[in-house]
């Protein structure tokens, strides 16, 4: 961790609140996420001056203004690129990207893909509300097909894409999912913060103005346990209010929901292995209402980070050729002398 506490001053969550008035709509899911992040920063003893929040454009991208850290509110979709430059220039900084489904997967989809394959040591929080909020209610790349919005009065004819599938296909080393009001969001964010490499967290987030209730099935107290499954490494895949449902591998190679009881025991269930890429991908493809949607850490492996490799290349060049200075820069290659007495 670049950001362990170095002195005895203990910061509280409110110490990470900037003096800016938070201007999300009342009731927006973003508030809950902001609170969880501030709490986490206090818990992990992070330093304000060492932290940088980087964002693009959209409601979620206002996030940096509300954190008493360094912040860069960039342009639409480009937060991953800006963050890459920051991290490469100063790897000591603790960098957090906050983006949304439009910012991160539509206009900035390219950058997000390449950020994850490079595996810079930073964190990506993708607030997925399945709608364009700041532009007042058009469908997004994660909106369900047929979605009726201002720009799709007859229903959207785009197939949505799945952020977690994209992350895995982009060689992300850490892939997780939470929800704005999910009680485990703090734990998930902590895992992300502790992971060395690009940590990608999709957060189901309610836009109570333009897409209210899009994730009610996953967040409402009375139904969420039956509709989602919280993953824990090495534990069987069990879910349900009564913890009586599980996932078993069906004969066709797909998971199926089974009820625990006389015929099916825990030993028959799939066990979560967050180091197995194919397993993680399978988990991303489970949708309500047929299957529970997974929460928690789907995938987590260690791999080299881009900035470390780059620093290593610089070090190796300096070891092989000596640390360059101006003279060795200029007076290199095929130089020749012209003397004053030349004819």
């Amino acid at each position, binding site marked *: 961790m670049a950001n362990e506490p170095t002195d005895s001053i203990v910061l509280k969550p409110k110490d990470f609140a*900037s003096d*800016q008035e938070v201007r999300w709509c009342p009731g927006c899911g973003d508030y809950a996420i902001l609170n969880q992040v501030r709490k986490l920063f206090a818990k992990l003893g992070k*330093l*304000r*001056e*060492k932290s*940088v929040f*980087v964002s693009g*454009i959209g409601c979620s991208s206002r996030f940096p*203004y509300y954190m*008493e*850290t*360094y*912040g*860069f*509110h*960039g*342009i639409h979709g*480009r937060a991953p*690129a*800006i*963050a*890459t*430059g*920051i*991290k*490469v*220039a*100063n790897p*000591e*900084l603790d960098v957090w990207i906050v983006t949304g489904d439009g910012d991160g997967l539509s206009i900035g989809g*390219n*950058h997000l893909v*390449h950020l994850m394959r490079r595996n810079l040591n930073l964190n990506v929080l993708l607030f997925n509300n399945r709608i364009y909020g700041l532009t007042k209610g058009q469908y997004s790349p994660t909106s369900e097909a047929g979605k009726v919005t201002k720009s799709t009065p007859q229903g959207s004819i785009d197939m949505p894409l799945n952020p977690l599938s994209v992350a895995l296909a982009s060689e992300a080393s850490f892939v997780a999912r939470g929800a704005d009001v999910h009680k485990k969001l703090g734990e998930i964010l902590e895992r992300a913060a502790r992971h060395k490499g690009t940590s990608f967290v999709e957060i189901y987030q309610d836009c109570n103005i333009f897409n209210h209730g899009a994730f009610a099935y996953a967040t409402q107290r009375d139904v969420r346990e039956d509709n989602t499954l919280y993953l824990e490494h090495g534990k069987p895949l069990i879910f349900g209010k009564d913890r009586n449902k599980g996932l078993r591998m069906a004969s066709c190679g797909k998971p199926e929901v089974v009820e625990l009881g006389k015929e099916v025991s825990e030993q028959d269930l799939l066990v979560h292995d967050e180091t197995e890429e194919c397993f993680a991908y399978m988990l991303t493809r489970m949708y309500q209402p047929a299957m529970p949607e997974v929460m928690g850490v789907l995938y987590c492996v260690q791999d080299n980070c881009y900035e470390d490799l*780059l620093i290593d290349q*610089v070090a*190796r*060049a*300096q070891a*092989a*050729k000596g*640390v*360059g*200075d*101006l*003279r060795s*820069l*200029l*007076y*290199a*290659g*095929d*130089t*020749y*002398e*012209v*003397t*004053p007495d*030349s*004819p």
Partner: protein
Amino acid sequence: MSDPHRSNPAGSESSAADSAQPQNLTAATVRFAGDSGDGMQLAGMRFTDASALLGNDVATMPDYPAEIRAPAGSVAGVSGFQVNFAAQDIFTPGDEVDALIAMNPAALKANLQDVRAGGLILVNESDFTESNLVKAGYVDGYNPLDDEEINANYQVTRIPISRLTQEALASSGLSTKDALRCRNMYVLGLIFWLYNRPIDVTVAYLEDYFGKKKNLPEVAAANIMVLRAGYNFGDTARLFTHRYQVDRAVIPPGTYRRITGNEAVALGLIAAAQLSGKSLVYCSYPITPASEILHSLATRKQFGVKTIQAEDEIAAVCAAIGASFAGQIGCTGTSGPGLALKTEAVGLAVMTELPLVVVDVQRAGPSTGMPTKTEQGDLLQALYGRSGECPVVVLAARSPADCFDTALEAARLAVQYMVPVILLSDAYLANGAEPWLLPDPDSLEPILVQHPRANGDRFQPYSRDPRGVRPWALPGTPGLEHRIGGLEKQDITGDVSYEAANHQLMVERRQRKIDNIAEILPALEVCGEEPGDLLVVGWGSTFGAIRSACQQARARGQRITSVHLRHLNPFPRDLGPLLSRFERILVPELNAGQLRAVLRERFLVDARGLNKIQGQPFLIEEILDAVDLMLDDRWGDSLSRAPVARNRTAKRG
């Protein structure tokens, strides 16, 4: 300079000499031309280095196809390398070719029109086969070598270079294919003989490059054997009536190296990082003709350089901005289409007032245009091509070596004024080479950068010093936590603001900061008489042709003055007064009149444009023609004229 009635075929200004003694020339222009795979660039570069080491002034211009491997033998696949070497100061690779080497019919076809009347054409007769003639588009049994007009207008010398190369390597055991790959060295040896220069430098190069670096001693030996064979052939075959000698030029003493514009940009950016105690973060997406800057920097990590090959042009500029925010020197490089993609991010750098250097190696546009050909078409894009009121500093380099100074200045201004700087180069500068008098590293002025520390008060990221520059507070500094972004800022505090009067104020503040840079610009270097009858105003890579043309015009008694602009935004303070002292103003540009339009708008002067949009640099004589039209009041009412087309063979009559 170009006397069509000269008798010597291979250079300018001969003195009488018998054929046994080399004729003295003050300058000569040689063009090596062949198929893409014929090694013409290598031959040209070896000849250039040997000439530079002999003390000539040199200027080069490669001309290669956009296709990596265009069909063999086709005109599209012809690759050329032109070198002008001289016993005097020269500023261009030469208007006309004194000696053309054509390795196949396509090379002859593509280059014949540039050869001076009476010039030497050396052809590889082995490859003038019927099928190659057809590939070059010569049909119906026509062979240019048998063309009476061509033979009358030029000194055509046929040499079966391919066959002679194979014969030279008969005992080497090399395959025919490998042997033929040495053809370029045969030609090079021959040209070394023709211009009376030793081959030892090239022998040493081949031993080092192929023998040591690539560990291919047999390849080195074969190339050297063929180089010597070509040289000896010149000595023994007596095919040429003359040999030529170009003495060393009187150039300032010092240490030199040959440098291209792209290489010089790379070195200038590293120098800026070294002089400011920062590391260079160069983020770029490959694009012709700017990629060599990325390549060059990637090999120089020992200087602390960090290079990122980004996923696209937008990511490249955004990563550079991020690097600057984090306190290093963030730079990106591209060409016109890439600059268009970076537009929004450059606006972000203007709004966040962060240092940024954007190198635009211009090429012929619009759109994909002609990627390997030169143009100055991006001036207005650099000046104005953004949303909103969005001024940036714009600089232009004037020669390959000058790219070093301009890149260094671009980075210096960017970090000292917290502004984006667009550096305009072009394909002609990027790939052209000239001798560079190396500066004394100790003479380069350090770039002083100050980063604030907390003083207990609330940090004000948009407070300003007397020059209008905001503080560069680095993430990692306790107590200076702040947020920036593309939204309009409240003056001083930097908080987001939609206040009407504040927006106007901030637009003015950003403009004034750029305007203030004019205070520190050096006085314009005005060349020639003042007031004269005509002022020629140029910018960028046209410097050499304009300087040469003006010198020649003055030598023939015309009262003309020239000035060349490095700073295109802001303009130097003395530009307006200078313009106002002239009734006739000529602005030669490789575009449709972009600087001309700006000068007219800004200074209300009646500037006229000589506008060449052909993907090629100006010839000196094209500018001289325009000077004549202006001075003789034959220009007429038109704002812009294209150069008069040349017909060299017709001049002979």
